[in-house]
């Protein structure tokens, strides 16, 4: 009895204390910031930026929430549907059109001063512009490239390829080595479609035709798909690609079991840590009539119904200071999105970074269209059917193009 009386008194006191503190807390503007988790370093990094910002702006509190990439879109969807969206969030640029067309993203032209805008590299700024309005700032960028295992190439007496024909010939030699796969082909889960786009683009094709219809039933697409299928059938890839997701392919490469993969810069820190003896080289994608790389950016977006836009923007400008951006890009292995960081020594002299950045002048981005995830899923499903031999490349791609056109309402 005494005990419970004491606890309830304590609870009341606590309650009063909270109410007593409330007026002081209300004077602070709270900015909710949803951060996508790139690695275990992401959360602590943004917390550090927020702490520095709060020290300089005691009237603003930055409330950081770190969400894994896999569940980020689901999380934001539920937040928006439930009316509890954050004030700012990192999102995949491929989702931006959906956010913008539903009136959920706030155009930032009014906030962006010319000198702040001038700090960004234009290539990375452009994917965030929708209908002439800037809907978000690039926050992270990467480009894709080919990575080869130099030891395996030497053992097989092959030279790193520049064209698809050369890759095919080199792969034949490498596949002859014991317990070795020549080409790592991703066939499962996130970015299975991207692995095909690399091939499609370098054959001169594109995801969408000029008129907006799907480019999957083009000559280039069929040639590209046939090439992958032929490589599977001739044993030049690891067996059963549909069982290998992106990380599985990368792991095979780290183990030194595969000669060639297509990959992103974020793999470099992993290799340095887990397989420091691996002799690799970063090269542009093989060509068959066209040069291409896949440029991927993530966007920092402000929500239209935020009630702390001024404070949020103040934080955004603060977070883009060179010192923070340098730490972020180095820590996560990204390509810089701001000119000052890109000019730093590390990013101009490091052969790995240079290898990935080399493709930027001709980089392709995922088209900014509605329902992109669904269209990507159709592509993934079709590629899996082709790899498994359930459909021919011609039939599969024609059906996929028709389905994508239907999704696009064309």
């Amino acid at each position: 009895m005494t005990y419970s009386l004491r606890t309830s008194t304590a609870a009341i006191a606590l309650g009063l204390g909270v109410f007593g503190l409330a007026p002081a807390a209300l004077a602070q503007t709270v900015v909710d910031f949803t951060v996508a988790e790139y690695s275990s370093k992401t959360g602590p990094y943004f917390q550090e930026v927020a702490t520095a910002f709060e020290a300089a702006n005691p009237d603003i509190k930055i409330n950081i929430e770190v969400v894994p990439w896999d569940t980020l879109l689901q999380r934001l969807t539920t937040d928006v549907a439930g009316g509890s969206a954050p004030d700012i969030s990192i999102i995949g640029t491929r989702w931006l059109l959906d956010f913008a067309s539903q009136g959920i993203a706030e155009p930032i032209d009014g906030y962006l001063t010319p000198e702040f805008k001038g700090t960004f590299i234009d290539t990375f700024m452009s994917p965030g512009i929708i209908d002439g309005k800037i809907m978000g700032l690039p926050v992270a960028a990467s480009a894709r490239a080919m990575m080869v295992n130099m030891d395996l190439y030497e053992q097989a007496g092959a030279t790193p390829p520049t064209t698809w024909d050369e890759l095919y010939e080199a792969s034949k030699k490498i596949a002859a080595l014991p317990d070795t796969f020549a080409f790592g082909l991703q066939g499962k889960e996130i970015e299975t479609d991207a692995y095909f786009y690399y091939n499609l683009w370098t054959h001169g094709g594109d995801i969408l035709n000029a008129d907006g219809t799907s480019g999957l039933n083009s000559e280039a697409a069929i040639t590209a798909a046939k090439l992958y299928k032929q490589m599977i059938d001739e044993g030049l890839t690891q067996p059963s690609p549909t069982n290998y997701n992106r990380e599985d392919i990368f792991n095979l490469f780290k183990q030194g079991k595969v000669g060639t993969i297509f990959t992103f810069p974020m793999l470099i820190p992993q290799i340095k840590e887990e397989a420091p003896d691996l002799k690799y080289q970063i090269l542009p994608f093989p060509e068959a009539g066209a040069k291409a790389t896949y440029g991927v950016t993530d966007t920092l977006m402000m929500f239209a119904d935020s009630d702390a836009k001024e404070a949020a923007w103040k934080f955004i400008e603060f977070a883009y200071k060179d010192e923070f951006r340098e730490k972020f890009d180095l820590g996560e292995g990204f390509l810089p999105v701001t000119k000052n960081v890109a000019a730093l020594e590390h990013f101009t002299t490091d052969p790995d970074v240079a290898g990935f950045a080399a493709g930027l002048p001709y980089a392709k981005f995922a088209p900014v269209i509605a329902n992109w995830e669904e269209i990507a899923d159709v592509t993934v499903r079709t590629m899996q059917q082709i790899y498994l031999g359930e459909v021919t490349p011609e039939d599969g791609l024609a059906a996929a193009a028709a389905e994508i056109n239907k999704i696009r309402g064309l």
Partner: protein
Amino acid sequence: MQKSIPMMMILPSLALAIGIIGYPILDLAFTATQEVSRFGQLRGFVGWDNFAEVFGDPLFWESLWRTGIWTFAVVVGTLGISMPVAMILNDDFYGRGLARVIIMLPWAISLTMTAVVWRWALNGRSGLLNATLMQAGLIDQPIEWLATAGTAFTVEILVGILVSIPFTTTILLGGLSAMPQDAYEAAVVDGASGWHQFRYITLPLMRPFINIAIVLNVIYVFNSLPIIWVMTEGGPANGTDILVTYLYKLAFRFGQLGKAAAISLIMFGVLLIFTMLYVALVSRNDTDAAPDQEDEADDHV
């Protein structure tokens, strides 16, 4: 007055159940008749459009068919294994306590973790299963279990059975330990074989427990997302998609929340109809059986 007291006593929990179960279903039904934006905002009434879209979608029908196979195979497989396991565990033998704990252990691990572990074990190159099979000389080339829909779905069903066994065994074990031992003793005296004891004593007496195990397992398995989602995400090429994985993709990847709401409502309907039919079937059998017993009783008199 006397009668109303029990009613009043269950009223609070009834209200709670209606609030927790009923409200989401009403909300779902409402959402299913609305045009829903990419981010879940309602954009006005569209009637049956979402349902029409679902019924016109071949992937829905494939997933529905596969859900049927999945549910049937897992539930039948689970019962087929759990029954003998429960009977063995019901016998008194040295180390029974330990054996019971071992059987129950998988239950203590979350479904997602079990699925993750199996995904690793089934990996073609570095997986434990292939390594074991190859060392045992059963196969000479690694099998990529999850690469094709056929093998992937079979393996998923087996994992589904594995994780359903502890729960089902528990139910059946409860039934077995409540079984009257004198019936068996009498049967042994009359010279009944082990099979006859099982067929004519154990099975009939266990029927209520088997029934509840069937109903609950069907509901759990029909709605179970983690195993398939973690192991294959419904792939390759939608070849292992069941309704709930397809629904998850629609809702949270493609943002088609209206269509997803319609599918969940259909799933709810399917389960409701199954449960009602099954309960009706079971209780009709019981009422059929009841007069017989009375007749027998009369004869004796």
